[in-house]
């Protein structure tokens, strides 16, 4: 009961935070993705042929939606938890009888909430440019939630280790964004030379984007089972890792 109240307090606090500063948290993704749809999908995409039997516009929509889920879930947790360390109000949580898993769950749910909300807005934006007839609701929703969870966890781990504001922008800029672009948002890896195809398989984001694309439009380069295994496996690993870090007090206790 105590833990439930604490959890609810944290989640409401997190959601209120990103809604209050919506021009920084919700708007940017919508603007960028609308530009993607317009430039790549509409203007340039019209000159491309179909990929795997779907128009280029339709092909990129799932990846663009998932990209905004990834970056927003990650950004929400990394910024919010790091700010909590920076302002030292992490101490408010440390002195209170909250289990570590509740702290983690509260932050991850905050990240999921923002990731999914932005995802929904971006999806709505994409409907201005194309129609989506969901191919498989189950796969779509599971991957959607799992991805938001995974990157919320990743943001949490980043915040735990971060010691400066630079530390919370380095990983998103130099790791997350490149991996997302190389994860096949705008192309099918079958279009790449053999070596690059093999290398791409080491990119976890590739699996999520393909699974999501399968869910939305029924097209994928990767077996769905493997995609689920990868995403689920990473999520489980990061959950355990985060709990170990919290338990040891790394980055938050002297």
């Amino acid at each position: 009961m105590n833990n439930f109240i604490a959890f609810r307090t944290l989640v409401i606090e997190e959601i209120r935070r990103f809604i209050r500063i919506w021009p920084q948290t919700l708007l940017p993704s919508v603007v960028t993705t609308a530009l993607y749809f317009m430039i790549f999908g509409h203007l340039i995409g019209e000159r491309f042929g179909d990929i795997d039997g779907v128009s280029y516009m339709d092909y990129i929509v799932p990846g663009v939606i998932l990209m905004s889920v990834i970056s927003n879930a990650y950004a929400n947790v990394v910024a919010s938890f790091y700010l909590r360390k920076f302002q030292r109000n992490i101490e408010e949580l440390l002195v209170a009888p909250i289990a570590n898993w509740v702290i983690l769950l509260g932050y991850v749910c905050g990240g999921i909430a923002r990731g999914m909300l932005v995802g929904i807005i971006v999806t709505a934006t994409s409907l201005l440019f194309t129609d989506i007839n969901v191919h498989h609701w189950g796969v779509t929703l599971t991957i959607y939630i799992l991805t938001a969870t995974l990157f919320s966890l990743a943001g949490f781990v980043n915040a735990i280790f971060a010691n400066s504001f630079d530390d919370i922008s380095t990983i998103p800029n130099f790791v997350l964004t490149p991996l997302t672009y190389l994860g096949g948002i705008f192309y099918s890896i079958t279009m790449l030379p053999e070596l690059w195809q093999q290398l791409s398989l080491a990119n976890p984001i590739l699996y999520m984007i393909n699974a999501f694309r399968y869910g939305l439009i029924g097209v994928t380069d990767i077996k769905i089972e493997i995609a689920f295994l990868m995403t689920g496996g990473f999520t489980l690993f990061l959950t355990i890792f985060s709990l170990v870090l919290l338990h040891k007090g790394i980055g938050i206790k002297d």
Partner: protein
Amino acid sequence: MNALSLRNLTKTYRNGFTALRGIDLDIQQGDFFALLGPNGAGKSTAIGIISSLVNKTSGSVHVFGHDIDTHSAKVKSCIGLVPQEMNFNQFETVQNIVLNQAGYYGIPRHLAIASTEKCLKQMFLWDQRDMVSRRLSGGMKRRVMIARALVHSPQLLILDEPTAGVDIEIRRSLWEMMAQVNQQGTTIILTTHYLEEAESLCRNIAIINNGLIVEQSGMSELLAQVNKDYFVLDLAQPISALPKIEGYELELIGSKTLSALVNKEQSLNGLFQQLSMHHIDVLSLKNKTNRLEQLFMGLVSE
């Protein structure tokens, strides 16, 4: 029952610095306890360990009989902490800071709202409840932390320099509040560098220096040890050199000001007689004794 009991508590920070070198401390339930010591003595470190902000290196901590290693949630629910440094969200409103803290302690919403209102009123912050905390004055910020520490009605309230930077009027009301909270049964641990404050509020005291407890006793027993009074005398005429007066320790502070250290058994008449013989006229006399301060200086400079 002991509200707090520490056994051989040590702390070595990651950089290798040992801040606590084996502390034993027992604080009775209901006590108003002063934990004093110079800057860097280890007070905040000890408080950090008790309130789960700092990992101890070795030793044990029991709060109302609960072991911090095995029953940390129970220990945490008993404690309310007012830390030395600001540690709330600068972008949050006063009311939400306190309300959220109640939530972290697992207090149901309707009770949390009532308790928040009570604590904010007690801290004279009700009018500021919707203000973003960053805009508050320094003293108000400190009061926010006190309100936040009281919101779950802790059995043990730990105040790490709560009156630093608080104006006189508010300080007086904080003293009243602390005495009142203590009377209602809450055990209080107070650290402060205003020794008069500790002297007038606290019943028991420990002095910590270089990570060790150098003195622990009842306040009145401790003060009884002081056997000298310190006076400051204002003179009518400036004097250039100190007269030699047997039995009294005199010092020239300014050309028209003398200080005198007088043993409790000595009479002041003797001092005045001798001063008259040296044609020194005393206009006025102030007793500057801060008994605790004297003791404190003796203990920590040893």
